[in-house]
């Protein structure tokens, strides 16, 4: 009986001590000790957990790498396909925009018949400003026909073969176009240069030219139909000692980005050379 009592007492005391310790620790009285203890436990658990995860990854990795590589290849192919599609669509959008502008232009100028052509090259010589288009005599293109875009005059057909033609741009140094300045109501001569800049010459000294004046073809000489837009006057050079005024011109067409052009196929250039008087001895 005495033994039983002493054991019960011991157990009670032990529980009380443990309960007391727990109560004290929960109350924060053993914080430094518990922190060390729990810190150790956490470190130990972390060590086990990381090793376990590493082993798990090591065992599972070969299957994942193969599947990931396959998936990566598929996605890369998909991306390259989509990039090709995007480029293709962008190209089509550009072409559609150009064609839409050209259709608008042909609708607003119904008196002319047009044949659309793509620019496929330029003259191999840097001295000359010519382009090569993919329409030729098989499509009704003839020498001397004017070439335009929706922005304005480009040039005229210089040579034709069955499926291609060479076009002399108005920027060519040998090009000259009879023009009409609408605001000043005067005629002038548009000439090209080796740099691709165009300028007006033979403007009467009496004419009043302003920057921004619109320049159109005059139709004189029979080389081009009248009233095709060429560009605008940028600045005027007027000197009292000279016979004529000159002017630099901002062309309406961007000649460096020509892609699609229209050939006016119902216009036949008139060769006035036989009508030009020649001096006889």
């Amino acid at each position: 009986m005495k033994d039983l009592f002493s054991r019960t007492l011991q157990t009670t005391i032990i529980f009380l001590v443990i309960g007391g310790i727990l109560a004290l620790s929960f109350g924060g009285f053993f914080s430094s000790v518990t922190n060390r203890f729990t810190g150790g436990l956490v470190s130990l658990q972390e060590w086990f957990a990381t090793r376990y995860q590493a082993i798990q990854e090591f065992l599972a990795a070969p299957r994942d790498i193969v599947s990931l590589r396959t998936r990566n290849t598929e996605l890369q192919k998909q991306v390259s396909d989509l990039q090709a599609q995007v480029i293709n669509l962008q190209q089509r959008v550009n072409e559609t925009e150009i064609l839409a502008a050209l259709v608008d232009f042909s609708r607003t100028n119904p008196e002319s018949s047009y044949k659309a052509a793509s620019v496929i090259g330029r003259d191999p010589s840097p001295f000359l400003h010519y382009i090569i288009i993919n329409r030729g005599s098989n499509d009704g293109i003839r020498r001397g026909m004017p070439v335009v875009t929706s922005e304005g005059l480009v040039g005229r057909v210089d040579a034709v073969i069955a499926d291609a033609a060479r076009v002399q741009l108005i920027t060519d140094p040998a090009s000259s176009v009879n023009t009409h300045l609408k605001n000043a109501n005067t005629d002038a001569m548009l000439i090209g240069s080796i740099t691709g800049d165009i300028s007006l010459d033979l403007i009467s000294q009496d004419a009043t030219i302003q920057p921004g004046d619109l320049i159109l073809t005059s139709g004189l000489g029979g080389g081009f139909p009248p009233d095709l837009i060429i560009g605008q006057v940028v600045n005027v050079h007027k000197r009292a000692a000279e016979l004529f005024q000159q002017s630099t011109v901002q062309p309406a067409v961007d000649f460096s980005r020509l892609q699609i052009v229209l050939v006016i196929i119902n216009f036949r250039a008139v060769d006035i050379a036989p009508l030009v008087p020649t001096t006889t001895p």
Partner: protein
Amino acid sequence: MRNIIALPLLGLAVILQSAIVSQFSLLAGYADLVLVILAAWALQDGVTTAFHWAFLASIMVGFSSHLPWFIYMAGYFSVVLFALLLQRRVWQAPLLAMFSVTFLGTLVMHLLSYTYLRIVGDPLPFRDTMGLITLPSLLLNLLISIPLYGFMRDIARWVLPSMEKA
């Protein structure tokens, strides 16, 4: 027989010149791919068909250009002539010979073009032509001459297998 490669190679060069090279301009000048190819070909050891290539090239380029074919023929023949003359003198420095031939060939080609256009009445100021067309073209030709020399050396080894054995 392998010399027949001149036909597709020069044809491709003319197409590239017209469609692509002429788009990459420096000021108003651009490189002359055909001229540099001819110079590189004529400088290869054992090549005896350089004049034939020049003839073919001048016909092809003359067909697509407003300049007449005989101007190109005179220019390209002079390139081959320069190459043959320099090949025997500076053979130990092929790149130096390549630069020299490209330089002289470009100048002669431009001089011929300029003279012809002046004769037919094109108003080309000499100073502007030199500054805006010839000098930039010269620089671009010299730039492309290095890779094209290597390319034509490989072509020559294929066309003339005896050269490789030697």
